[in-house]
Every structure is written in structure tokens, then in C-alpha cells.
């Protein structure tokens, strides 16, 4: 979980591809936007996230989108750091996908 975020503070996020999400407010571990932000904005785009607060800029690695939904008049999303187990599972899944692809290639060549 992203910790030490000041509460009720305006912050800016810069995602891995340089996309900037501005004028966000913090509430607990939520970021609150006045306008909806599509899930697709975050997909494959959280390997590096820079969070700018009044205190400075902090860079986070390997985040995940926990939730992104509307509550009342605000749109709230939560980012969290992936756990070591989640990273290991992702690497394993990628390895399996690579093996499957290789197997298909070998089969088609044969």
C-alpha cells in the first residue's frame, strides 16, 4: 500500500507512459477525481508512478489498480504496491505464456 500520503491534499500522478492525472485529492488511501478516469488509463501503465505532493515527488514501482469507481459525487481510485507473491505469480504466468507460445511455434513448424 502506498503509505504516508497526506490526507485531503491536492496531488498529481504521472504514470509510466508520461500521462499526468492532475487535481486529484487524497482521502485515506484513495485518490479522488471530479471526473471519471477509465481503467484503460492505468492498464499496463503502473510500472512506474510518480506522485507529486506539496512535500515533493515520490516514485513508486510495480503498482496495481485496486479499485476505480464512483462514490457519491466523486470518482475514487486506489493504487497499491504489488506484493512479492503477486509479482512471482505474474512472472510465472508470463513464463507459462511464453512456453505455450513457443510450443505452438514448434508445432506449426513441424
Amino acid at each position, binding site marked *: 500500500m502506498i503509505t504516508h500520503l497526506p490526507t485531503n491534499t491536492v496531488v498529481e500522478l504521472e504514470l509510466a507512459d508520461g500521462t499526468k492525472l492532475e487535481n486529484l485529492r487524497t*482521502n*485515506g488511501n*484513495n485518490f*479522488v477525481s471530479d471526473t471519471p478516469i477509465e481503467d484503460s488509463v492505468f492498464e499496463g501503465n503502473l510500472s512506474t508512478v510518480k506522485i507529486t505532493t506539496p512535500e515533493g515527488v515520490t516514485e513508486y514501482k510495480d503498482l496495481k489498480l*485496486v*479499485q476505480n469507481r464512483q462514490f457519491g459525487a466523486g470518482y475514487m481510485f486506489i493504487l*497499491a504496491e504489488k506484493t512479492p507473491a503477486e509479482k512471482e505469480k505474474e512472472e510465472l504466468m508470463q513464463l507459462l505464456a511464453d512456453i505455450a507460445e513457443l510450443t505452438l511455434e514448434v508445432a506449426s513448424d513441424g
Partner: protein
Amino acid sequence: MWKMDEAIKQSKKYTDSKSPYTLLDYFINSGEIEIAQIAGIKNSMFRGKNLGTSYTSEQQSQVASGKFLDLWVGDYWEVNGTRYYISAFNYYLDTGDLNLTTNHITLITGGSMYTHRMNPTNTTEGGYIGSEMYEEGLDQAKSTIHDAFPGSVITHRRWLSNATSDGAASGAGWFDSDVELMNEHMVYGSNAVANSVGQPDAHRCNVGIEKSQLPLFRLRHDLIGIRTLWWLRDIVSASLFAYVSTDGVASRSNAPSAVGVRPVFSISA
């Protein structure tokens, strides 16, 4: 300096001169202790007196002043057939991202007001804030409570869960709040069946500012198990919320279950 024998002497003017509550109220009213110390006394003794059928202007003044004279844990009002117990004094004082500075007393109902499901489907997704219970299930309770204590129910900031991951609370924030379900800490004094380990901050998301047992339940354990089911707002799994079971067991049930609503709220002047 104020003396206890003077308090006893003064208290003899009253018909209930032997009451320790009267003596303590005299001590409180003597000015010998700071206002901020009074809640400590008030939260330490159970009385259980019927305060009538309405929250009087005198009682409102006592709460607003922070002296709470003639009000004790376990005292109750019976309004339109619903019993409202005083469960704590200044429980929320100095909490919230927007600081609550108003003297207040916290009430719970004697029993379940009605039954309602937490969610129409078997999920805890969205946490307590995302539940049907939060969005509309408490409306009937809010209406009844605001009618019983018109203009006196306070709105303050509570820390409430609004996301779950892998069967545990994973998100929380500050929300304007008046009438809510209780959490396990308020009832049992600790985490019981809520999932407190599934996510790095699951415990914090469920507990928030309501992190200690209400004095009413500390002093009257039997008011927890009331031979009926009633919901708590803690996330137990991807499909289960916590509740108190009919037999008094700290338990949990699927979100679509029709279980009792026994809310908590606070009043001032």
C-alpha cells in the same frame, strides 16, 4: 478546596442523597476538575435509568456543556417503542480529518430495528461504503433516529472501508457520517472474525477511528448477545460481513442475508 464531605452534605438536600451518581455529579459540577476529564468519569459507571420519552432541553444543555450531569452509561430513552442506550461520552472527540470538537454522547438501540441485507449479491466488493446497506439500507433507521432526536444527531467524519481485495478490506477514506453500523472493536473490544491479515492494511480499513470498545458493552456484556442477529460492518471475506449471532457468538454471514440493523449514532444539543 472542594471536599467530598461537602458533596455529601449538599447531596442530602436531594431525596436520592445516597446515590453515588448524585455525589459524582456534585463533584463534576464543583469545578474542581477540567471539563475534559468528565467523560472519563462518565464512561466508567453504569446506571441504567429510564430518561423518559424525549431528549429534553436540559439534557441537551448538559451534553453541549460537556458536564453530562444526570446522564450515565446505560441510561436510556424510550421513543416510539425504540430504546436508545447511552453507550459512551465523547467517544469521537478530536477525531476525523475534520476535527470533531463538539461534546456529544453516543447512542445505540436496545435491539435490532429491522432486518436488511448488506448487498443484493454475495459480495463485499466496494467495502462498507460500496454496500447496499450503506447506500440505502440504513435510510429507515436514519429516518426513525432523526425523528426521535430532531436536530440533535451530529454529522462527523468517520473512516470507513470502500474497497476489498482477496477477501479483505483494502481501501478506506473519510466520509461524512451520522448513523452507521458498528464495527467489531466497538462491540467486542478487538478484532474477532474480520479478515485482518489478508491485505497489508485490512485491519486499519475496518477499524478506523472506532478502535475501542463502547463503555456500554464493557460494562454490560449481555447487551451484545440479544437473541437476534445484527450486522457489523467489518469485511470477513469476499462474500461475508461480520455479525453478532443469536446465540451471542462473534460470527459472519453472506452479504445477501437478511440480518438485523442495530445502528450507532451520536447526539449533542
